[in-house]
């Protein structure tokens, strides 16, 4: 059973917000989905070697190496345009992000 506290903790971990009504329904939906996926408990996987599931990709992948070469990627102006907040510092465009230290932000 997934508790109310679990849901609140998960919201913080996942950095998402849900409204009050959404949260109520969320607990029920999560319970339904987790109840359904419980069917996996009965699946017999004793024969699956650990090496194979750790690389459980849909095609058989192998490591591919390329040369360690320096490539310059031009910075398209549209990449900067799409940044939510920016300003001209007088010597180039600065991108503005919220403060990560202390309580003061934006």
């Amino acid at each position, binding site marked *: 059973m*997934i508790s109310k506290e*679990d*849901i609140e903790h*998960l*919201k*913080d*971990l*996942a*950095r*998402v*917000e*849900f*409204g009050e009504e*959404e949260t109520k329904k*969320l607990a029920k*939906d*999560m319970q*339904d*989905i*987790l109840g*359904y*996926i*419980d*069917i*996996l*408990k009965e*699946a017999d*996987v004793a024969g*699956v070697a650990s090496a*194979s*599931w*750790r690389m*459980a*990709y*849909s*095609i058989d*992948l192998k490591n*591919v190496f*390329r040369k360690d070469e320096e490539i310059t990627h031009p910075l*398209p102006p*549209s*990449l900067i*345009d*799409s*940044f*939510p*907040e920016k300003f001209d510092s007088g010597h180039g465009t600065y991108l503005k*992000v*919220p*403060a*990560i230290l202390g*309580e003061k*932000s*934006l």
Partner: protein
Amino acid sequence: MTITEFHDALKNKKTSVRETVSVYLDKIKTENKKLNAYLEVFEKEAVAQAEEIDIRIQSGETPSGLMGVPIAVKDNILIRGHIVSAASKILGNYVASYDAFVIERLKKAGAIFLGRTNMDEFAMGSSTENSAYGPTKNPHDSGRVPGGSSGGSAAAVGGGIAMASLGSDTGGSIRQPAAFCGVVGLKPTYGAVSRSGLMAMASSLDQIGPITQTVADAEAIFNVIRGKDEMDATSVELGGPTAKRRTDRQVQKIGVPREYFTDGLDQRIKKAIDGTIEKLGKNYEIVELSLPHTKYALACYYIIVPAEVSSNMARYDGIRYGVRKEGINLLEVYKKSRGEGIGLEVRRRILLGTYVLSHGYYDAYYTKAQKVRVQIKKDFKEAFKEVDVILAPTTPTLPFKIGEKAKDPLSMYLSDIYTIPVNLAGIPAISLPIGWAEEEDSVKLPIGMQIIAPHFEENKLFELGKIIESWKQ
């Protein structure tokens, strides 16, 4: 008009690219209000491109590749200079700064982009009702869903407002809407088409593919967009009969897995597929077989997908691009930006993924699911020792009514029960229309069937698909 017919008409000077593109643009103006298949139409650009290609043809160039073909593109594939929103509010103003690999390839082949199509937000859904910009309607009955998540792309082709389109398929998002809209949808082998420039949903499963009117058209687009790309480490260059475009007979034995024909399957779909199998029985050996881990596929998928989603969606934080909301501290900025900018289903999957990956639950859920995934893959491997291809229904039901499953996520998830195993195994499959079913209100709804082949053997799908399709004529 199909791509093949269009190119024949161009060669015989029966039409021009400009004329054909204008027909589509005019039809979009009247039809899109009803269907809501397009989120944006690139009218001016499409006309300019069409005129340019007409000049090339007039000066003696023979129409080849996808020259002049008007294509609609799912809103999670980047076209440089255009908004690409994944039908989400958080990316409502986001402009792509580069072309996806498939877009680069299509541009080189001369394709024309009509616009970007509606979808379930970030490709999470099976009905296109999860779009932040309103649901798309089924072209055969506006009260029903077109399927999803590539619902806009499938409805555009099914509704005659695109010659072909691109979609993406993580658990059936090309094939299920193709079946619901009466068109052809191809999910290529994982790795056959580069994912560079496709917004990541579940990276170990996502694959771009075409939605078209005919199998030959799907093959034509696939041959343009496939191939190795430096920007996607999982992409590979195709070898073997598919790459060589072999035309000698590759399919002799057809497998029919009994797990796909159980009680949950609509009897009308079953009847149509039984009829197809009976007809094929005259020229092919039909083998009944078992894929014993099929019953675990959906549960396995709904652990692996949310797990990958919770990681992939972390980038939409309101910091780098999209919409940023204010808050008293950084955590609140994140939570508010994501809470208001991202829709309910996507947030639900982020939370579910965070849960199944968290300490104490990881082994019971994620590790177990990965192991089951190996078993599902093994089922197909064993089956393909006996048969060349496998036939199965694409969907358990006919297109459902708008709103019918929107409130209950689990019932929505179940609509992908027949398409998901293919993604988990990474093999290719094509859905094609095989008939119609009549509803009580005398509405006729399309029935889809999928053909499944081993890794990188798309050629088998095209071969058998064309034969089944030819019966219609």
